[in-house]
């Protein structure tokens, strides 16, 4: 069809309009060369690959709705009396920020909807990034060459937390103001510089008249600007590295199997943006979020019970709630460990997951590229560490909601707090051990399946009366998929003498590496995958199993 069209247009001596536009653009931007490698770029298909898309789309939705909100929001802390259409607050003194947020919610048609989409999308953005990060972690997608992209993603997650925090602080309502006060208290706890940073951030004493305007510029310009840059970088690297894929027939480290960007992924991914947006709009239509009018304007001498930050700050909230109130006074100074340690832990726990790829690559000493994903079971130590990390995070969330857990489940708040204090230490250890056991068990099962076939559930009675379960041998596709993963040998400490027979000093780092490597890949820390010889012996020899 296209050829006949072409020949027709040639007769008139002109290319079709689209082609002429493309020619024009190519002469200036070189789009044909760009499209040559990208238009039919292959994307592998797996449900977990859409998690990152959820993040990207919710970020776009946040930007779109956020720009709309800036048209009506006044980032000012000047006190005004309320005269809008929400009757219960008539005449009350409040900041212009709070006043304009009420205006958006009650007097701008659709304003409440956009506000709620903005807030819901932020929660989903952060949740999406968390789950996406876990997907990348547990499948080992962070390995070479993607370590830098892992850091980009990690930074997006951390900056997303602070963008969210500065955003929900803007309406200057009683709940968010309490959160800002908490932040001020945490800043004050920093040794030597705490009071200065606090005074510089708030323009003097808390709350002052500046923080809404300052948070506003941080929230709408500084942080999202950096995040936009990081996200573009993240995507460029995804394109450049090409997508990872799970092991399977026809898939190797050298190829990427899937469907082309044009048209399938264009339609699927493009359509998915609308799906995400549509779902968030429906949530915003039906589920109220952050009803600032019910909380009232911020007053430093008032508070409501059950005060909770947005979920992604719950982990930090938990750390600060279950830390004992240690204070050390010396030489006229106070070391506020009860608040400062949680502040440091917050950074350390997040940092631990960020640097993990570098630790693992040091332990394995593996310098090759990895494009085939690991199944979590095939990396038991990594998976154990990941689950331990998630456990710490979740203990923090539980601790951050200790009051709600106490009231909802009729428990003593003291018991809940003690539970999280103990579980902050015990939880990750238990999680690590249990997860590793489960992974090894699953590896044994895979080994069993490969060697003896799939349990069919069919019980057969043999002529001499014996009952056996019929095992069905796996197809070559399945055999390949279950045995495609690489198993490392544990690293050894090098010989104690060098090539000249002189005793050499073995470095501590070398010993540590050997130890860690053994913990990763030593005996009992991974189940040797079946070899072809084992398989052949069993299948050729004694038939049924």
């Amino acid at each position, binding site marked *: 069809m296209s050829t006949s069209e072409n020949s027709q247009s040639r007769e008139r001596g002109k290319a079709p309009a689209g082609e002429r536009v493309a020619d024009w653009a190519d002469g200036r931007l070189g789009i044909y060369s760009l499209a040559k490698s990208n238009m039919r770029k292959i994307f592998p298909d797996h449900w977990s690959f859409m998690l990152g898309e959820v993040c990207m789309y919710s970020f776009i939705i946040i930007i779109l709705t956020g720009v709309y909100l800036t048209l009506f929001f006044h980032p000012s802390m000047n006190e005004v009396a309320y005269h809008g259409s929400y009757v219960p607050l008539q005449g009350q003194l409040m900041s212009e920020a709070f006043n304009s947020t009420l205006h958006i919610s*009650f007097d701008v048609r659709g304003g409440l909807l956009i506000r709620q989409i903005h807030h819901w999308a932020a929660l989903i953005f952060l949740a999406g990034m968390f789950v996406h990060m876990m997907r990348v972690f547990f499948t080992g997608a962070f390995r070479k060459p993607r370590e830098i992209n892992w850091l980009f993603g990690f930074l997006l997650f951390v900056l997303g937390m602070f963008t969210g925090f500065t955003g929900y602080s803007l309406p200057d309502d009683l709940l968010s103001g309490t959160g800002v006060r908490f932040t001020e208290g945490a800043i004050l706890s920093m040794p030597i510089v705490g009071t200065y940073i606090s005074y510089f951030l708030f*323009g003097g004493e808390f709350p002052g008249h500046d923080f809404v305007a300052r948070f506003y510029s941080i929230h709408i310009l500084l942080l999202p600007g950096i995040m936009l840059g990081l996200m573009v970088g993240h995507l460029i690297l995804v394109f450049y590295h090409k997508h990872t894929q799970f092991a399977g027939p026809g898939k190797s480290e050298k190829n*990427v199997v899937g469907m082309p960007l044009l048209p399938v992924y264009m339609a699927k991914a493009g359509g998915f943006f609308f799906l995400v947006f549509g779902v968030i709009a429906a949530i915003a239509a039906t589920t109220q979020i952050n009803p600032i009018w019910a909380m009232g304007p911020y007053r430093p001498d008032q508070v409501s019970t059950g005060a909770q930050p947005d979920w992604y700050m719950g982990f930090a909230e938990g750390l600060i709630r279950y830390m004992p109130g240690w204070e050390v006074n010396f030489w006229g*100074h*106070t070391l506020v460990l009860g608040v400062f340690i949680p502040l440091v832990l917050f950074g350390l726990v997040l940092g631990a997951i960020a640097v993990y790829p570098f630790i693992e690559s040091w332990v394995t000493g593996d310098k090759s590229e990895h494009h085939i994903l690991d199944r979590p079971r095939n990396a038991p130590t990594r998976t154990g560490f990941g689950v331990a990390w998630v456990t710490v995070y979740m203990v923090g969330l539980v601790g951050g909601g200790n009051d709600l857990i106490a009231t909802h489940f009729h428990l003593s708040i003291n018991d809940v707090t003690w539970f999280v204090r103990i579980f902050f230490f015990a939880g990750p250890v238990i999680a690590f051990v249990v997860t590793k056991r489960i992974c090894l068990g699953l590896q044994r099962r895979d080994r069993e399946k490969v060697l003896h076939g799939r349990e069919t559930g069919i019980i057969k009675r043999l002529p001499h009366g014996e009952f056996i379960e019929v095992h069905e041998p796996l197809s070559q596709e399945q055999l390949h998929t279950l045995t495609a993963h690489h198993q490392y040998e544990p690293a050894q400490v090098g010989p104690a003498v060098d090539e000249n027979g002189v005793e050499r000093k073995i470095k501590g780092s070398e010993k540590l590496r050997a130890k860690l490597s053994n913990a990763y890949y030593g005996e009992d820390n991974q189940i040797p995958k079946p070899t072809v010889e084992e398989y052949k012996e069993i299948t050729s020899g004694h038939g049924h199993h």
Partner: protein
Amino acid sequence: MSSQDIPEENLPAEQDHAHAHTAVSVADEKDPFSDPGLPPHEHRIQDIDERAAKRSERVVAMLFTVSMLATVGFIASYVTIPKDKSIFVFPIGHISALNFALGLTLGAALFCIGAGAVHWARTLMSDVEVADERHAISAPPEVKAKVLADFKQGAKESALGRRKLIRNTMFGALTLVPLSGVVLLRDLGPLPGTSLRHTAWSKGKLLVNMNTNEPLRPSDVAVGSLTFAKPEGVEESQEDFQNVMAKAALMIIRLQPDNIKDKRELEWSHEGIVAYSKICTHVGCPISLYEQQTHHVLCPCHQSTFDLSDGARVIFGPAGHALPQLRIGVSEEGYLQALGDFEEPVGPAFWERG
């Protein structure tokens, strides 16, 4: 739909089927674990039956049409529904009709575009998997050698390594220039000085009830009640009201003098009336939950618990030290008054607190 309806020539060939379920018996003899290559493509019903494809086409078109109607509905809702109208929706309850209508129509308009596009991609676009070659990320050795040589040449031509004076002064200048930016941040706020040590309380200031805005008399404070107070002369309309209250907020309770365990607390009280800072010493939330029987107050933010009958010491939670007490007495007119400022800083601890 039975397979008889599908034209014979469109049906997948028999051997395709056989291959898709290859058993081990036909697996590679030498290495049964080796990669058998991409499995053969399995046709969808839309690939072999034009009627099924037509049906898919109609579904996609219907979804796009629903989206158009939903957008019309959005505009109609925006124009017709008053913004203060509320409706009852089970199980959510009474909600804004406008928000509900706008959100659902917008949601439907967007969702249907997405659903249509995805359905189109899944049923009508080719689902044949193709393999793309990957290329090594790192450059081949000769490229690396060329780049390193170029760099060396450039570095040599710049003479940066040879003319150390230029190099050192340039680094010096580049290190110093950001200092201007740092210095400019100085006016973000005043220096703390001793401001965190002082509040609006001073000797002779009356304790004014937050609710009634009237000075308190001892008789106004009943045993077991919790009253919040501010210093006299502080009004909500004042510019610095928030800053003043962030430090000066006070809670007043009355205990039986016999129940006061702490000696200093008793001295600083008046007829069993004690005044404590309302600002939690943990991270500064206002404390507001009072338990009459035990004389405990609980901060609702992080659950620090203080015993008001024992110098407000911390009995549970993350707070690091007791709530500061305000020394109170009675003025000549019989009103409760402060006998000075707090003796120690109120609110969260900080480095200079000591």
